[in-house]
């Protein structure tokens, strides 16, 4: 049993379970949390799941857990694990079913006061232009060949279709296209689902949110990102839809046999994996990259539709209704990166499952405009609470494989949330706070109630206290579209 006594306290924000805690662990587990957040985490299986992850072959450094952690399936949400490339393993479950679920932030120079009278119209237009909800299909009808091309090109595909700008691509992780995508390693079923769902938001915790820049903490970084106090921004949270879900399902199923072939012993079948340099590992890597590019493209298309909604509602009412991309970042992904481990540069596959890349200043992987300030880290709140823009740091490069938190993190089951919160009551509460809302269902709304999540401010204080990110700006929600 894992208790507070199992941990060695490293600092007020870091706790470690040594490799000797359980046989089979190949590396220690480092948790970024305050004592209070850690005590909460011990109420579900998140830490136990992190200990299970620490048994994967080829791990380097430590398994890391972010303060927004909660129980998942196999990996905990908030988990980061780096495996040596090319002889370590890749685990589809460590990336998740919603491959490249992520967040995009667009900024504007629209003052909140100017647009306040039109917010209800704006949220209705966003809801109209950006298809959302269970089983929604998009307006695009791609052939197999076009889908393959879209998966190889990611956001570049949207640029060719007039749904992106060069600047959008510049300010997207990997410029919206990870090289090495292999659509030929994607099943016909995944493609069938992918063809129908491109350009849709989905349901669950996915959302579009109009926010106001509430407080600036780092004026230089905020200015570089185009964030100005009192101005509107737009967040888009979604992923690779049924395309990614199917790819992950296919490979988790296929890897059940692969672990037997490679003699890999695991404490949980959802952790199935294959060596990165094996045919199975390479096939998954190529398919996963295809899904990652699909997700970048999906958020790009949604951003295009959101811009149409802004123009439709605000043209002639405000001077400049344009939305400029701040950044687009993945939080469910596996990336081949080079990091320093024990003083040595090592090429690794970083699994981020509910964790955001947070590269520090100077990294060549981030846009030149952000190179002196660090990569933007987008931390959405929980509908009705703040969201945050942070920046990656040198410390994150040193101690967390350039990673940080990805959100508030659930603390309450969906059932418990529905028992405690009435959807209709929540809607009225949010509206009374001035938050305009469109939601697919009231029960879905209740499941996603702010009470079901941790205090995002406490999560942000923790990553900043640990030094793996620093504050840039705090955002306040004023309109939400929930799938």
């Amino acid at each position, binding site marked *: 049993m894992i208790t507070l006594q199992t941990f060695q306290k490293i600092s007020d924000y870091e706790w470690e379970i040594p490799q000797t805690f359980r046989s089979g662990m190949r590396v220690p587990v480092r948790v970024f949390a305050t004592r209070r957040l850690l005590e909460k985490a011990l109420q*579900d299986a*998140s830490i136990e799941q992190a200990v299970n992850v620490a048994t994967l072959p080829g791990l380097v450094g430590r398994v890391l857990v972010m303060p927004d952690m*909660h*129980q*998942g*399936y*196999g990996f905990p*949400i908030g988990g980061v694990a780096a495996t040596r490339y090319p002889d370590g393993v890749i685990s589809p*479950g460590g990336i*998740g*079913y*919603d491959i490249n679920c992520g967040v995009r932030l667009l900024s504007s120079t629209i003052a909140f006061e100017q647009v306040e009278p039109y917010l209800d119209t704006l949220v209705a237009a966003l809801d109209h232009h950006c298809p959302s909800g*269970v*089983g929604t299909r998009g307006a695009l009808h791609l052939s197999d060949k076009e889908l393959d091309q879209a998966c190889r090109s990611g956001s570049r595909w949207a640029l060719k279709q007039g749904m992106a700008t060069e600047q959008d691509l510049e300010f997207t992780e990997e410029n919206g296209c990870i090289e090495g995508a292999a659509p030929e390693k994607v099943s016909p*079923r995944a493609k069938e*689902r992918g063809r129908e769902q491109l350009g849709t938001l*989905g*349901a*669950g915790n996915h959302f579009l949110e109009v926010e106001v820049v509430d407080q600036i903490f780092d004026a230089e970084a905020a200015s570089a990102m185009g964030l100005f106090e009192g101005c509107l921004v737009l967040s888009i949270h979604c992923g690779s839809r*049924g395309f990614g*879900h199917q790819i*992950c*399902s296919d490979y*988790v*199923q296929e890897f*059940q*046999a692969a672990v*037997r072939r490679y003699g890999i012993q695991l404490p*949980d*079948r*959802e952790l*199935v994996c294959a060596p990165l340099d094996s045919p199975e590992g390479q096939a998954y890597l190529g398919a996963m990259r295809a899904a990652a590019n699909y997700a970048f493209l999906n958020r790009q298309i949604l951003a295009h539709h959101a811009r149409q909604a802004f123009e439709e509602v605000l043209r002639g009412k405000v001077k400049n209704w344009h939305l400029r991309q701040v950044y687009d970042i993945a939080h469910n992904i596996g990336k081949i990166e080079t990091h320093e481990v024990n003083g040595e540069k090592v090429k690794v596959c970083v699994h981020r499952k509910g964790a955001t890349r947070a590269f520090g200043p100077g990294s060549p992987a981030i846009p030149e405009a952000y190179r002196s300030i660090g990569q933007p880290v987008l931390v959405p709140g929980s509908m009705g609470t703040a969201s945050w823009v942070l920046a990656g740091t040198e410390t994150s490069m040193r101690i967390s494989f350039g990673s940080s938190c990805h959100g508030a993190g*659930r*603390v*309450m*089951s*969906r*059932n*418990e949330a529905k028992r405690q919160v009435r959807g209709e009551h929540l809607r009225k509460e949010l509206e009374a706070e001035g938050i305009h809302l469109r939601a697919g*269902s009231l*029960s*879905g709304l209740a*499941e996603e109630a702010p009470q079901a999540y941790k205090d995002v401010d406490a999560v942000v204080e923790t990553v900043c206290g640990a030094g793996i990110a620093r504050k840039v700006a705090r955002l306040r929600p004023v309109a939400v579209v929930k799938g």
Partner: protein
Amino acid sequence: MASTPKTPIGFEEIEHTADWSLRVWAPDLPTFFEQAAKGMYQLMGAESLSAPIEEIELTVTGEDPETLLVAFLSELLYLLEKGKVAHRFYMIFGEKSLSVQLKCLPLKSISKEIKAVTFHNLAIQSLNGLLEATITFDV
């Protein structure tokens, strides 16, 4: 520790912080799989129209019952996305396969989406003459 089932066949939702867990029990494998399907539909709030009935056959393969279960439920999720809800199941288990004849009805509505069926801690165990397992769904 899960309590002893009060009925010989059934399912119940188990608390999970972010996703959904479903405990299923039944005296034999075909009934167990059918209960798992019904439980999954209930979690999603899947409602069907009363006609027309469509017959669909599917076959899944796997090394063990757990792999077959995940494959079977994943097929049902796909059919649901295609607007079909299975309401009658005739199953034939092979050594490493499962063939199912389904009678499906058109989907009327669902209230929640399941992204995937996971293998997380999935083990179909025999306890006091009943098969039992907890299935975790990604939502």
